[in-house]
């Protein structure tokens, strides 16, 4: 009888924990009604939110353990029998996936604490269960070493987020589902093409097998995957669902979008550099560069033109996808510099922190003031200093302002462009950063500093302030003491380029 090793057990538990917790969260009100009086059960209605936070805390502890286990050359792999001849349920962990799992649990913890602090938490058990399911799928995507399993979980994550957002804005949730379903179908198409080329859906052997593919086949696979993931990341032209969603929801559904962005970026980094070996794909670099520049500038300009905090946050989320595409373009050139792939890995770790800081601050303003229209907000800094600092730290980090963590990403991108003699790209990046800096400062000035009579503000709670404070601290800490983050990103970049763990 086969015995599971502790490492494999850890891998299984990391994947299963959110799903078990989601089931418990969904059953929470019924269990409360069976064991408590109706009044007590009502008082416990928000219970699933702290329960979700505790689950994430457990996951965080396990993720640290996983990170320590795979920090060297050690990789964990688990191969299950899903179907005899079509595909296997393969999970595996390397440094890259360990960092992503850690990030998903960490972000989930902050989101749950924030949601627990919001004044209204209607249908808290549904929200907690769906958010945990989405987290579980994201973790599965990070740990998956089978293309079909990866697409299966990506689709399932989109469906969980659709259900979650449907609780607040059904029409916009449908737009999210339609767009992301098209995107995930394209990723599936690319995975099937890889299967035809490689003869197997395991990711472990694909890079070598794909080297036998012709240039046009490689180009087709890469472009189909890239186009599909652009809808989920979200980048131009697949970004339309996010700004509309931002306008329609009060914010809590949108917090989970940070997870979707993180997971889509993970898939992009995993599939493109890991499997197609970027420099071998003809035309990918120039396509990615054009898409990246258009996404960056379109997002930044639309953020400048928008009039409320949610809209600006949504367009800033779109803009950040541009940086990743530009980094990929740099890594895909014939004279590819490893700096660009390192920048992409670092971007993957830093940007979700910055985006979540912006979204949590926006959500806190909405919850305490009741509006996020910049015309109606003024002089909030005295009453909501944490939200102001969160917005400023997240936004300035996106713009690459030192000493925040985002500076390291921009430093790598600009230095990579200069090292390659691409002065125009370096100047364009600096100008885009300046525009994003202006947009963020404009929100901060109008909502938090403007000397007018402030709108009435509801009292805040520690649960609203704590996650933002942690994110501000993390962005500053990783910016000032950048050595560990740089090491992680180098490890992750190396891990992305190397083969996946052997089954």
């Amino acid at each position: 009888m086969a015995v599971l090793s502790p490492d494999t057990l850890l891998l299984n538990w990391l994947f299963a924990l959110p799903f078990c917790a989601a089931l418990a969260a969904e059953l929470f009100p019924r269990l409360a009604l069976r064991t408590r009086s109706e009044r007590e059960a009502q008082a416990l209605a928000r219970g699933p939110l702290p329960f979700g936070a505790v689950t994430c805390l457990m996951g965080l502890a396990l993720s640290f353990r996983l990170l320590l286990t795979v920090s060297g050359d050690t990789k964990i792999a688990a191969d299950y029998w899903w179907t005899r001849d079509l595909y296997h349920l393969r999970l595996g962990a390397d440094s890259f996936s360990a960092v992503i799992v850690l990030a998903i649990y960490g972000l989930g913890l902050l989101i749950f604490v924030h949601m627990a602090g919001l004044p209204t938490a209607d249908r808290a058990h549904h929200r907690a269960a769906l958010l945990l399911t989405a987290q579980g799928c994201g973790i599965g995507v990070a740990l998956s070493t089978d293309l079909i399993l990866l697409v299966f979980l990506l689709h399932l994550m989109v469906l969980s987020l659709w259900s979650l957002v449907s609780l607040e804005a059904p029409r916009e949730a449908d737009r999210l589902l339609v767009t992301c379903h098209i995107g995930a179908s394209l990723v599936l198409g690319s995975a099937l093409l890889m299967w035809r080329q490689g003869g197997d859906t395991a990711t472990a052997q694909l890079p070598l097998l794909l080297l036998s593919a012709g240039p046009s086949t490689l180009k087709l696979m890469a472009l189909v995957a890239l186009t599909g993931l652009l809808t989920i990341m979200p980048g131009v032209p697949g970004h339309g669902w996010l700004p509309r969603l931002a306008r329609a929801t009060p914010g809590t559904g949108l917090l989970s979008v940070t997870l979707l962005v993180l997971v889509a970026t993970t898939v992009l980094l995993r599939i493109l550099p890991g499997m197609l070996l970027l420099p071998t794909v003809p035309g990918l670099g120039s396509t990615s560069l054009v898409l990246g520049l258009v996404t960056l500038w379109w997002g930044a300009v639309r953020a400048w033109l928008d009039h409320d905090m949610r809209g600006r946050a949504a367009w800033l989320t779109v803009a950040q996808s541009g940086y990743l595409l530009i980094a990929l373009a740099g890594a895909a050139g014939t004279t590819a510099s490893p700096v660009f792939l390192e920048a992409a890995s670092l971007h993957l770790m830093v940007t979700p922190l910055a985006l979540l800081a912006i979204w949590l601050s926006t959500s806190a303003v909405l919850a305490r003031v009741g509006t996020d229209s910049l015309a109606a907000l003024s002089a909030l800094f005295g009453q909501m200093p944490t939200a102001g600092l969160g917005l400023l730290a997240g936004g300035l980090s996106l713009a690459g302002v030192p000493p925040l963590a985002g500076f390291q990403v921009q430093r790598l991108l600009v230095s990579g462009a200069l090292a390659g003699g691409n002065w125009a790209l370096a100047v364009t990046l600096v100008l885009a950063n300046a525009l994003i800096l202006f947009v963020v400062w404009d929100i901060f000035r109008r909502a938090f500093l403007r000397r007018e009579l402030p709108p009435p503000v509801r009292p805040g709670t520690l649960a609203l302030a704590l996650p933002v404070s942690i994110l501000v601290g993390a962005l500053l800490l990783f910016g000032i003491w950048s050595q560990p983050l740089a090491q992680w990103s180098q490890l992750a970049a190396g891990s992305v380029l190397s083969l996946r763990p052997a089954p």
Partner: protein
Amino acid sequence: MTLHSLSIPLSSLVTVFFGAALLVVSTGLAVRTRTAVAGLGWVAVAGSAQAILALAAALRTPEGEALRAAAFQLLAVAAATALAALCSSKTGKTESEAGEPDGLATTGLVVAWLALLGLPPTIGFHSKIAICRALLAEDWTGWVALVLAASAACVWPALSALRSRRLPSLGRLRALCVLALIALTLLLGLYPEWGLLLAEHVARLAAPS
């Protein structure tokens, strides 16, 4: 027409074009239709058209896995359509009399639509992949693109049906059947091996001796 395509038997060629035409027409009608039941019906026809595409691949290469894929797809479409039909049928009560929408019927309809669209965690996801793999094995990349595009297009009728309908409560027997079909559709989605074995058995019966 290339030399490669000339090697396709006429029966396979006719079947593949018939399947593709049926897929395009039924998907178009599903998107255009205004009633939920008609939309569901046309999407079920589109699902069967995908099985016809796989049959065309089986006619070309009988020893491949296309026949099994076709049987698997038909199993998925049959389970999903039966589930949707059971959830949609009225049990004597009107929707206004039924009051609150029935949770089980709504869940059943959602699962049925997910299976018809080929979305996880249902059997439809695996049958869609089996169909695509059977077509790719014949180098029919264009038809794979058509199958994926049809699956994407059918989301519109699915969403309009799910958003517009308030399903009345189900009778006890019907509720039991719905529960069993939901379990089957999800179980085969999470563990497709049993569905594949059944499809293989059916395909063996249909295969030329």
